[in-house]
């Protein structure tokens, strides 16, 4: 059974260690601008929301990509970019409702979460367990649906905030 990242923003302390380890793992550098996960904050209300690719079943990025560089790897349960095909048009970034795709200006390429090939570093380091790597089935249990409903509202706010940047 494929696994997914399950995020519980109420547990997030806003420390951004996930951003750091993600950029070190992928690029060998400390640089949140190159992280595949992003903590969106409302500091003056004390709210922090981790945002990364949702690895959607029918991903908008997949349909919008003009050269079909994006596909789903069912075994890993993830959405992947084929860099040999990608032309860097950034349509996927524009369409993603979660800000899951971003552009790495230093490497000149779009980047997204790849579950660190099965050993997600953000999960490894997030002590409050705001991010967990769990079976997809587990996420669909009643409890998670309830949490997700609450989450949807905040996700829309986050999406709006990202769009405004």
């Amino acid at each position, binding site marked *: 059974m494929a696994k997914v990242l399950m995020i519980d923003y*109420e547990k997030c*302390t806003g*420390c951004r260690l996930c951003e750091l380890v993600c950029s070190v793992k992928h690029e060998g550098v*400390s*640089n949140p601008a190159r992280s595949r996960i992003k903590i969106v904050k409302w500091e003056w209300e004390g709210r922090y929301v981790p945002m990364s690719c949702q690895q959607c079943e029918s991903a908008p990025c997949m349909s919008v990509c003009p050269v079909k560089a994006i596909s789903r790897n069912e075994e890993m349960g993830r959405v992947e970019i084929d860099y040999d095909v990608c032309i860097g048009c950034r349509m996927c970034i524009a369409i993603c409702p979660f800000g899951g795709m971003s552009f790495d200006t230093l490497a000149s390429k779009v980047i997204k979460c790849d579950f660190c090939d099965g050993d997600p570093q953000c999960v490894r380091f997030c*002590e409050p367990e705001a991010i967990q790597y769990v079976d997809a089935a587990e996420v669909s249990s009643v409890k998670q649906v309830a949490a997700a409903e609450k989450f949807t509202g905040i996700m829309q706010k986050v999406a709006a905030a990202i769009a405004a940047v």
Partner: protein
Amino acid sequence: MALNRKIAYINLTTGEIETKPIPISMRKKFLGGRGLDMYLMYNHVKPGVDPLGPDNVAFVSAGILVSTLASATARTHIGGKSPLTGYVGSANMGGFFAPEMRWAGFDHLVIKGKAEKPVYLWIHNGEIEIRDAKNIWGKTVHETQQIVREELGDREIKILTIGPAGEKLVRFANVMTGVKDAGGRSGMGALLGSKNLKCIACRGTMDIKIAHPQEALDYNKTFITQITSAKVSQTQGKIGTPFIWGSTNSWGGIRTNNFQYNQLEYSDDIEAESLDEVNIGMAGCFGCQVHCRARYIIPDGPYKGVYDEGPEYTAQGAFCGEPGCTKRNTLLVCNHLANIYGMDLLEVGSLTAWAMELYEKGILTDKDTDGLELRFGNDEAMIEMCHRIARREGLGDILAEGGLRAAKKIGKDSIKYLIHVKGMSNLHSDERGTPSLALGIATGSRGSDHLRSRPAVDLYHLPEPVLRKIYSTPVAYDGPLTSDYKDYEGKPWQVFWHETCYEAVDCLGICKYHTTFLAATGPNFEEWSRVLYYNTGLEMSPVDIWTVAERAYNMERLFNLREGLTRKDDWLNDRYFDEPTTRGIPAVQGRTIDREKFAKMIGEYYEHHGWDENGVPTPETLKRLGIDKEPSHVL
């Protein structure tokens, strides 16, 4: 790489900006953060300058490990000659500013001169601009950050700012970032205010190359586990430092009604359990898995619904223990006011408590207080004094000058009641029962201070072999060590050890809660040697790091001596020696500090440092540390 961040010299009088690389030789000597700042301070601040005049210099820096994989690598250091004490000014804060400054390309800023009108600095990816600050002058700490982000159109910008208290040159004004992260103590906010510098905004997306990425990741996991597996870290991560209050107050370690008692009665409403009711979750500084910062919403009163962070143990003492106040609302509101005005809450509470004692003794009258009934336990008066000090109104204007200047102005025997060292107010903890803690505050380089050298683990009754293990590395020590906190034996070494440990932490840019401070098992020199190598590639042994810290501390001592400090400034108010404690557990009741034994401790403490009986580093010590030719003007 992590070592290629630059130093920038910014002259606010002329508008000139110059940037330079930092030579590896200087890294090896001082690492970064507080260490290199202290070198710069000794080299760039001329002796005897007016701390609030254009000749004083402000130093802003990131520790050498900031933003790398070494747990909580978040710390910003701010230095300069202190407007409060006239000696070393040094403040340190967590949050997210220093990492952003490094991603923007800089490790050290040297800010000279004075701008003609209010300005702020905008630092982004290697560029530095001086901009007009008229839109933000007069704004609170929280407002300023929101306005600047809007003005520059990026919500990710991180800002170091002063509040209205810094603009009004309150001599203990803070530099702040985020909601409550405070570069407190020693008035660095007033220093920026005196330069007409409102804030520094940073944004960076430049790589910091990690020398050995996979090893750094793996070792960071071990390092973090070592920190978070300690019970105190876990408790701190749930309710923050207020957890310290309960036991300390029970045994009799809380300075109450200025210095009249050592325990606050009826303190249920301000204890951790009560604060937990308004806590909406914890927050962490950059990379931190301890997450000790509480987020709260004020539940009642005129400030109902206001969001803020904290309050810490220090705030409990400053706004409740010392002024004898017992309401949670007072604590939450005063904490908020100190944060938005940007001032050292410890000074605000401590000086107000002092003024309360003067009022009750008739040294201050209704005329001096403009009718405010400045009695212990008057919660309203405590809140009112926060406003008056920040705005420099009436008595607030006098207190805003700091204890020593205020005592001079108030006259009579007001100085007798002032609880300070080198002109800086003491934390609310009552050190009469604990000679080691008393020695720490008496000798701290930035004045009375518990974050310079406090051997907090001395209170834990650790068995002697455990003490040996901690205190005999990385340099050998075979002198006495005792598990009894009431003792005077061996304590000078402990103070010296922690002083060196905390200096090292401040050079590295790591949080003190991630070393041997509250948790006896926290990582220190041995572990730092490894994280330093994995992240930066610098090969330095535990002893090398110890030596850097010693070197930096000696620079601070040299600075203080040059400004006229003498042995008698490393001393406590007479009340510590003459007035016995009246409350607490039997072991703590009836205690004073013994003058003779204390003087002997000071002598031993000097000896450990390689200082003579006057507290002056000997020529051999300076030579051993390679600082016998300062100022050397390498940077």
